[in-house]
């Protein structure tokens, strides 16, 4: 997993609440059995019309080079657990998503792929939405801050998850390293007859 710390870039405003993972990655494309190159399917039904032509009204179609930051509405990533939603956003070029709140499974999936999700109060998100398109936002994971030309806000993140993201570590390596501890625990519990 790639480490993440400081990001400085423009951002994309997605002024929609309750963006569920069916919108982010429509079910039709779940037939794809790989995780690479999924960006072209992100928000497919909003980005393209029925003839496959880009819909110029949709904000993601208004950038030649996608900024690294997405600023969205509350309860982002609700619904289905599909990790494709995270893979496709990463593939589009996003490293950070800022929103007033995220759905739990989406948040875990994001962390597991080095995608930083930041919860800021609705008023801060609205302030970002109101700024000119060429504005710059600076994010520091180490300092847990988001800064613009007019304000600086701090955000909360679990200490363990922060460490993993900063170092690019993943939980699976950790669990594989304690395989013998897991085996002893299974035995201590009395083996499978006593386990559920």
């Amino acid at each position, binding site marked *: 997993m790639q480490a993440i710390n400081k990001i400085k870039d423009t951002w994309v405003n997605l002024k*929609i*609440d*309750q963006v*569920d993972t*069916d*919108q982010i990655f*429509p*079910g*039709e494309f*779940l*037939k*794809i*059995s*790989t*995780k690479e190159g999924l960006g072209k399917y992100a928000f497919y*039904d909003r980005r393209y019309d*029925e003839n496959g032509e880009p819909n110029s009204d949709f904000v993601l179609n208004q950038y030649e080079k996608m900024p690294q930051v997405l600023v969205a*509405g*509350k*309860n982002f990533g*609700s*619904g*289905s*657990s*599909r*990790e494709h939603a*995270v893979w496709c956003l990463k593939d589009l070029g996003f490293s950070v998503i800022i929103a007033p*709140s995220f*759905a*739990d*499974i989406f948040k*875990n*999936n994001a962390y*597991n*792929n080095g995608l930083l999700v930041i919860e800021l109060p*609705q008023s801060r998100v609205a302030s970002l939405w109101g700024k000119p398109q060429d504005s710059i936002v600076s994010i520091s994971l180490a300092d847990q801050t988001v800064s613009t030309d007019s304000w600086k806000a701090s955000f909360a993140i*679990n*200490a*363990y998850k922060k460490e993993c993201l900063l170092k690019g570590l*993943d*939980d*699976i390596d*950790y*669990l*594989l390293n*304690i*395989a013998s*501890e*897991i085996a002893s*625990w*299974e035995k201590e519990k009395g083996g499978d007859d006593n*386990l*559920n």
Partner: protein
Amino acid sequence: MADTLYDKIWNQHLVKTIPEGPGVLYIDQHFIHEVSSPQAFRSLEERGQRVRRPDRTLAVADHNVPTWNQHLPIKEEMSRKQVALLEENCKKHGVMLYGLGHPLQGIVHVVGPETGITQPGMTIVCGDSHTSTHGAFGTIAFGIGTSEVEMVLASQCMMQYKPKQMRIRLDGKLPKGCTSKDVILFLLAKLTASGGTGHFIEYAGEAIQNMSMEERMTICNMSIELGARGGLIAPDETTFAYMKGRQFAPKGLAWDEKLRGWQTLFSDAEAQFDLEYQFDISNLSPRITFGTNPGQGIAIDQPIPKADQLNNETDAEQHQQALDYMDLRAGMSLSDFPLDEIFIGSCTNARIEDLRQVAQIWKGRKVDPNLRINLVPGSSQVAAQAEEEGLAAIFSAAGVQMRQAGCSACLGMNEDKVRKGAYCLSTSNRNFEGRQGPGARTFLASPMTAAASAITGKITDPRDWVRD
């Protein structure tokens, strides 16, 4: 110390706690399916690892399968390859697969409980958000992403932070014509689609105690729609009676011993919850959603609310966006609203009891021939039982051929999709934009409402149709 039911199961499965970090939670049962597992198997192999406990892993093919002519090769190439990849991965790693043609094949959250694999006190995960269904048996069961699927394949453990805990007490008697689907849709409208975020919910109270296992599963299933990690219910005599004699349930002395353990699975009287709610459901009406998230719902005989009746401005904006997508207006009634399609199926409402409710209303009647109706059993076992009980014959006489088991039109990925712009009344769990197919417009409701509406071709209050 007073523990909640969640605490008790958590404590029994905690391998260790990382200082200042998450707990390592042991997983008793891992369910996998064709859609969220291929990338996990590939990554596992790239690490040079094997499945640590194939005996605690069970695979089903459910999301991406046709529900007609399952004996023939799958027509669509990518779907055929995805299902074949699951077979290949299971074979390579010694994982049992209930694939197409297997007598136990079906939707994973229907199969686990009906075979007795799902048992009280377990920790259960699956790369599917509706894993919360299994909580109806008093389990910690929740949906995970593909990275976490790989984590469990590799280690049989999950890194987990203990969520906050919520209890919802439901009192009163469920009125005639209402089902547990109406109860959970009511809770969604009250608490919103993010009302449970960060929490695990325990459902309790008289109304829950009086529910069958099927009804409880419907409630726990849609906990994720509240944004909760999962939902659970303390096992009781209803649970044990359901379990007894099931294929993989313990037998003989082992049953007695397990049962003694299961009987300790309840929240202590003094246990503390982070948040508690209490509702009386005695005056509940059948529910229906009008919007594009499951929290946007009303009683079937109420008008769609106006923006100024909502809590705040952002909700009002979202309300209008939802109505635009659905092509509906605030203030209008959905009663008698004409429908194009009906979907009776999914892990929420495709169990035998749901099909019995449909048959009860359809018996001796014909469905509206202008509707496209998909009636899809939750599993091959449910299908076989529906044949045996004569339900399939009732469906057929009413004008509907029961299909074969699978997730079907719930998620718009297999052959069964709702047409663009069509209005579909669905017994499934999500009314998101495009969920049942690009441009599809979904009304979520109970199997009884679906059955009554199938006769009239319009959204119909089932209370006038239910026989005493």
